[in-house]
């Protein structure tokens, strides 16, 4: 790996100036490297982080194909990584004009990394730097504990997709909220709303009353007066609050955190080194979480800017046709399939136009007349500001759910494609299944990364048994991976591990196992409705047992 030459670096600096003028914001320093095939051999299993810790699985071909996004929530072969300074990778034979396009694309990504709030936890440190020190620590541990280090890495990685990423993000932003006592929070957030079901006007009156008390008695005393009054009016309040506090005692933690805190085995002094590894694995997973959750937006944003800025760049006159060829390959909507570059970019263009014409407003939404809608232009010119807001505050899920509407679908002629077997011709037929925005959104959401929601049941975790609950969302867990994953958790926990999950009741046949086209009715529902049952897996002494709950 070597740095790009001064000539290319100068072009990059020129791109930065132009990108800044257009409103993008990113740190000054970036690093650009030329990568060869040999570099890629080493980089791609390490998810393009040159300093990631060594692990033997990185040297082996990993079986892909089965739920690979769920397994590896991070993309190898990305061009730019979210480090400080941001590092990007290039072929050594790219022509200048192509580098200009890629530089703009890269700057789009860097802007996204450094401004989108879902990346907040990655802003304050350089991941490559920490990864390097982690790599050294793990190498040192390996010298001391040999292959057991690799077992611990393996088992920790087995549950690294269950990290509490959203909780982590929430914690960061939660600190900006003003602090109120638990009692006050409970009174306003739970008691009044869920228990008393008060009307909005009364609720506001209560808040006003609270403020009044605080103003009159200054701070803590005011709260006391207020609560005394609450107790008088609602004698049951104190009891309910105590009950609530007891129930919400266990702070929410992800499985890796829980093991580090509670596992008797890991907390033995001789096993303290294992916790270091768990910490590293957890941190690495958290680092990559936002990337996979913003794929469409991130690529869309970068594509939007490489296209916009390239066309305005005065330095590459004469290469418009070359650019058009490459760019169209990147940003074309496939006839069948999903291209995140194209989809994201089209959405950003669309939102810019909508906001420019002031259409993201009630005045426009309530117009039913087609012609009036088509002509509507309030001339607010808010487009750019709006898409910058979107790139700051949304992730793929919210982006799609909020903005993919029927007008967008119609404008871009999008549809949900179906596939069915034509038995007389022995061909798979692809057909236009639906042009409804609702169906398209559902299809997109189904395609998004979504690890299973598995939590620890604090009530049932006792007598050395760890009790995990899979909150069922309509899809069963991949059965063949359950034994070894649980084996790993048992190793880390040092005792019996149980997992409660849902499975189709016996004798049920999935649509996929029946002849295509013969089982699925018009509305896409399989005929035999699946009956789900809860089952409990128990991993004890490295033996797995299963029984219905």
């Amino acid at each position, binding site marked *: 790996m070597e740095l790009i030459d001064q000539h290319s670096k100068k072009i990059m600096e020129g791109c930065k100036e132009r990108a800044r003028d257009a409103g993008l914001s990113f740190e000054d320093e970036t690093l650009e490297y030329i990568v060869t095939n040999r570099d890629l051999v080493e*980089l791609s299993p390490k998810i393009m982080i040159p300093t990631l810790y060594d692990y033997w699985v990185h040297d082996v071909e990993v079986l892909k194909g*089965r739920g690979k996004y769920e397994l590896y929530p991070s993309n190898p072969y990305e061009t730019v990584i979210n480090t400080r300074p941001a590092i990007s990778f290039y072929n050594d034979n790219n022509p200048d004009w192509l580098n200009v396009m890629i530089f703009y694309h890269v700057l789009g990504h860097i802007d996204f990394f450094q401004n989108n709030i879902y990346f907040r936890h990655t802003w304050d440190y350089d991941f490559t730097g920490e990864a390097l020190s982690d790599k050294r620590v793990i190498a040192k541990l390996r010298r001391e504990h040999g292959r057991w280090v690799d077992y611990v890495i393996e088992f920790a990685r087995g549950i690294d*997709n269950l990290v509490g990423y959203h909780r982590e993000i929430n914690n960061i932003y939660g600190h900006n909220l003003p602090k109120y006592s638990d009692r006050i929070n409970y009174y306003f957030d739970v008691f009044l709303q869920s228990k008393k079901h008060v009307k909005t006007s009364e609720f506001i009156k209560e808040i006003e009353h609270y403020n009044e008390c605080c103003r009159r008695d200054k701070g803590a005393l005011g709260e006391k007066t207020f609560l005394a009054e609450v107790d008088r009016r609602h004698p049951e309040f104190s009891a309910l609050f105590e009950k609530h506090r007891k129930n919400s005692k266990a702070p929410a933690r992800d499985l890796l955190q829980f093991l580090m805190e509670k596992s008797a085995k890991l907390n033995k002094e001789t096993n303290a080194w294992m916790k270091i590894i768990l910490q590293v694995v957890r941190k690495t997973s958290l680092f990559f979480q936002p990337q996979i959750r913003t794929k469409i937006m991130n690529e869309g944003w970068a594509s939007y800017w490489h296209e916009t800025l390239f066309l305005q760049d005065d330095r590459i006159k004469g290469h418009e046709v070359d650019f058009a060829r490459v760019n169209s390959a990147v940003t074309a909507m496939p006839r069948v399939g999903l291209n995140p*570059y194209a989809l994201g970019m089209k959405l950003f263009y669309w939102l810019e136009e909508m906001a420019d014409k002031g259409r993201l407003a009630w005045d426009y939404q309530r117009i039913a007349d087609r012609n009036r809608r088509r002509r509507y232009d309030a001339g607010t010119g808010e487009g750019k500001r709006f898409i910058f807001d979107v790139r700051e505050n949304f992730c793929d899920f919210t982006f799609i759910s909020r903005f993919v509407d029927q007008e967008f679908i119609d404008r871009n002629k999008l549809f949900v494609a179906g596939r*069915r077997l034509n038995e007389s011709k*022995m061909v*798979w037929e692809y057909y236009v299944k639906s042009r409804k925005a609702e169906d398209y959104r559902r299809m997109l959401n189904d395609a998004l990364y979504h690890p299973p929601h598995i939590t620890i049941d604090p009530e049932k975790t006792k007598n050395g048994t760890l009790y995990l609950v899979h909150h069922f969302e309509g899809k069963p867990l991949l059965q063949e991976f359950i034994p*070894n994953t649980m084996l790993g958790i048992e190793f880390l926990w040092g005792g019996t591990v149980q997992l409660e999950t849902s499975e189709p009741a016996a004798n049920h046949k*999935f649509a996929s196992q029946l002849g295509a086209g013969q089982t699925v009715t018009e509305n896409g529902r399989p005929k035999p409705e699946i009956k789900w049952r809860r089952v409990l897996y128990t991993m004890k002494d490295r033996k797995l047992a299963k029984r219905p709950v």
Partner: protein
Amino acid sequence: MSKKEKRYPPGDPARPPRPPALPGVYDYRDLLVLQAATTAQRSYASQIRSLDELLARDKQREQDGFPRKIRIGRMVKPGRGSKAKVVVVPTTVEEKFIHDPNFTDRQEGQGAGGSGDGQEGEVIGEQPVREQDEGSGAGPGQGEGGQHEMESSAYDLGKILTEQFELPNLKDKGKKRSLTRYTYDLTDRNRGFGQVLDKKATIRRVLETNIHLGKVAQGKPVDPAELMIAPTDMVYRILSREKDFESQALVFFLRDYSGSMAGKTTELVVSQHVLIYSWLLYQYANQVESRFILHDTTAKEVEDFYTYYNSKVAGGTQVAAAYRLVNEIVQSENLATDYNIYVFHGTDGDDWETDGKTAIAELKTMLGYASRVGITVARHSASVHGKTEVEKYMAASGLLESRPALIRMDVMDEDADEARLIEGIKTLISE
């Protein structure tokens, strides 16, 4: 159509193979898309070295009480031609709790993205179900990202299997000796005299002599008239006697390639056949010949492993056809006297001939000359209702009990793993 559905009752679906999944949102990566980078290829040398290390690591795992993690024997697109070459990819998988990607409750309802013109319900494209000889078969290791292949000769794989996985050694290699006969060929070279002048070799010698004599200067044109020719410069080819070793073992690989076999079952059967082949190759010190036969309702012989591996049709199944073809080949080519014959048959257990009368009859003929017949049944996990046709009639025939030295059957589920495969081979080939 309804007739067809009767033939393929739900459960053992003779459903055609699923076409490969369309690229999804996460299959697009900057380096590949923007810079047209190709996925990285590891050098073979480093992988061959690592295989031994990996296997040692795996053995250690077992001793430490954890299941093995390295899977070998997955082959990727065997090349045409040289049959003894098998591609081995040591692979592994990192297991986690994930949603079952094969759970397709809403498969049809979910669909894929699309763009462009077309009314709802309009067909916009077709893709043939049957793609014969298409490079990426329904095999393992296909898909984007390319494969980091490791080529290793099947012989090496056989050695690994025998040593690492403790597959049994053949005790008695059978009654047939390796035949040695002589053939005569113009392969030896001789200077000074002989039958046929080797012009190219002669010119080379002449030039060499003249360079030594200083008659040819570097960088200047050579004038042939000036060259001196010594009698010993003349190189001839002469007839020579060559020992020709005949193969000792002949293996027939039979595979059901009907529609119901698509996907995992084919993958399993073919993987197992590669392993068996490699093992035999090692046992017979490379003196193994193989023949490949595919069958649906009729059987045909194909010339190489590549075709054997990659062919698909969507037909029905008649096992007897394949057995009959083997018997015919053996009889017409008079193979039984010269070879130890092995027959391995892979199927999903489906047979239209439910009582298996013809199949059993053919099988009995086969047992008259074969050293071992091994039948692998890779059962569909969906077929919950007990045994498959092949299992039923094999059990009814009583052959497995009465001739255990000659015929074996191994039944596994279609989601069996590598360890199970190797276990199965032990069943099939053990003494």
